[in-house]
Structure formats: structure tokens, C-alpha cells
């Protein structure tokens, strides 16, 4: 268990696709613990993906209850090999990312997703997420495929410099 440094672009690991974990792989639990510790060390951070802390594995943590804006949530989510099965109700929202500390971007995301994943004990989960929690999960799962939020910008008006520190960081 450790608070790890969060990799900042252009670190090459951020653009790589992480391989799936084999079921039962203890690396999964270790990654989740590190992600949880690291997320806790960043106030305002509502999610992290393993590649962001230098671990090329399909593990993410999301906890939108940490957001300054209250929203519907399942508390702390620790997911291994997450996979989006359905995505609907697309909407554009503003996001930040600890791997791009100075930028914000408007990104189109589904407001409702159905997700298949394993929890930290390698139990199968099949859950539906909505709103900001769904958005945060998509942002983190993108990290597992080496897709960064800037890759999803659709117009020149969608990129902003962060003028004051801290809104929700993913």
C-alpha cells in the first residue's frame, strides 16, 4: 500500500493499452490499494486508473462521493477488468484529469452505463451507473485503453486552461 506519484502527460505509459488481469491475480488487489491511497492523497480527485500510477493493469477506483457537488453514487468503487456493456443518454460535461493538471475539456459521455467488472475479491459485478458517477467511470476506463480526455474533444471551444485550482479531477 502506497501513495504513488500520478504520472503526467507525456509519460508514455498513459498512451498504452493495459492488458486484462487474470482472474484471481493478486496484482489486481495491490493496484486497487495503491489507487485508493493515491486518490485519498489528492483532495477533489474522484477517480484514478492504474496506468496513472505507473501500473499497466485494468484496475480503477472511482468515488464521486468525494466531489464537492453532491451526486448519486455507490460510494467507493474498486473495479478490476471493467467493461462497459451499454452506454446511453449522451451529454457534454467539463472534465479535468490529474495527468493534465492545467487543462479542462468538454467531453461527450453517456449519462447511463451498464458495467461488467470484478470487485477487489474477484467477484463478478453487473451494475448500472448514472450521472457524474457514470462519467467518471468512462473517463477512468478510457485510461485503461490509453485514451485521454483530450482525445475526445470535438470542437475548438472545448479546451480550457484551468484558471483556478481544483474542480473535480479524475
Amino acid at each position: 500500500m502506497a501513495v504513488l506519484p500520478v504520472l503526467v502527460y507525456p509519460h508514455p505509459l498513459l498512451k498504452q493499452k493495459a492488458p486484462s488481469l487474470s482472474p484471481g491475480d493478486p496484482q489486481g488487489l495491490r493496484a486497487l490499494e495503491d489507487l485508493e491511497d493515491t486518490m485519498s492523497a489528492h483532495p477533489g480527485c474522484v477517480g484514478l486508473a492504474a496506468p496513472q500510477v505507473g501500473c499497466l493493469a485494468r484496475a480503477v477506483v472511482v468515488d464521486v462521493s468525494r466531489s464537492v457537488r453532491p451526486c448519486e453514487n455507490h460510494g467507493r468503487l474498486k473495479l478490476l477488468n471493467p467493461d462497459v456493456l451499454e452506454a446511453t443518454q449522451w451529454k457534454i460535461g467539463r472534465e479535468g484529469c490529474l495527468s493534465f493538471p492545467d487543462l479542462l475539456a468538454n467531453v461527450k459521455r453517456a449519462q447511463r452505463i451498464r458495467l461488467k467488472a470484478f470487485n477487489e475479491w474477484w467477484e463478478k459485478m453487473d451494475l448500472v451507473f448514472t450521472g457524474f458517477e457514470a462519467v467518471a467511470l468512462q473517463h477512468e476506463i478510457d485510461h485503461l485503453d490509453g485514451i485521454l480526455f483530450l482525445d475526445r474533444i470535438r470542437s475548438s471551444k472545448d479546451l480550457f486552461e484551468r484558471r483556478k485550482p481544483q474542480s473535480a479531477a479524475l
Partner: protein
Amino acid sequence: MKKQVALSAIGKDQPGIVAALSKVFFENQCNLEDSSMTRLKGDFAVLLLISLPENRTPEDLRRAVEPVAQKWGLVFSMRELSPEEMELEASGTLPYTLVVYGVDHPGIVYRLARAAADEKINITDLRTHVTTGAQAPLYSLVMEVEVPGARVAEAFGEKLEALKKELKVEVSFKAAEAEEL
């Protein structure tokens, strides 16, 4: 007959510039049709497309703007649009968005813009940011373009793949989709 002018102005940023300029247009019964205004570091830049009423000439407007520009420290220029320019509408082109980011180094904009120009691709909007990264300054650029046709888009996409490696940047080039939400 309809009269339109394009006006650009830039000066040190301070509260009140937009109010001062728009007051002039309002008092001269001018209509602000299209505008883009932004702050870059300490400078505020304004691009406007203004239509004039029957009883005002572009020269009238220039005289009205001049003292305001002087007071607010703005360098401005104005140009009347020809009837053909007022009619101008992009036709037969495909809108695309190009996003590029990577470690800052000289020549990124030039190489991309050159490649676009070579394919007769027209840049309609371009925004860039340099932000201080932890290791190296990050350059990010979003360009909106009009592409003459699907085949050109494909050819340009291939060129971008080569430029991506050469410039060591990330590139995404996609058709701009209408957002239906």
C-alpha cells in the same frame, strides 16, 4: 442595401472594454452579428462582424469607435465587406476537428497548417494552449477545418499519421458531428 464591417481590436485587458465597444454599436444602431472575444495572457482581443443601419456609413462607425479605442488603449482596424463576401457561405465542404497535443517545440502549428493548406483545407478556428507540465511544457491545439471532400480528408488523415510520428504528438482528426442531445 445591407452594409457589414469586420472589426478587430486588441489591447491590454481591463474590465469595461466590451461594454465600451458595444455601447458605441448600440448608440449607432449597429447590430453585432458574429463575435469572438478572448483574453490571451494580459491582452484582450476582439473580432466582430457588425451590420450597419441605412443611415450610417462605415466611416461614421470608424469615427465613433476611434475615441473609444483611444481611451481604452485598443489598436483596431475595420474593413467593409463586399456584397459577395456577405453572401459567402461554405458549400460542399466537410467540417472536421483536429486535436493535437504533445511536448511543446517550435513548428507544430506551422507543420500542421502547411499540411492543411497543401490539401486546400481551410482552417476556420484555431486555439492553442501552452501549459507548464511537470516534466515539459505541454502544447495543445484544437483546429476546426473545412475539408473539400471525403477523399481529401482521407489523404490528410494519412499525412497526419506521418506528422504525428515526426512531431512526436498525439493526433485526433474526426468529422465534426452535430451534437444531438
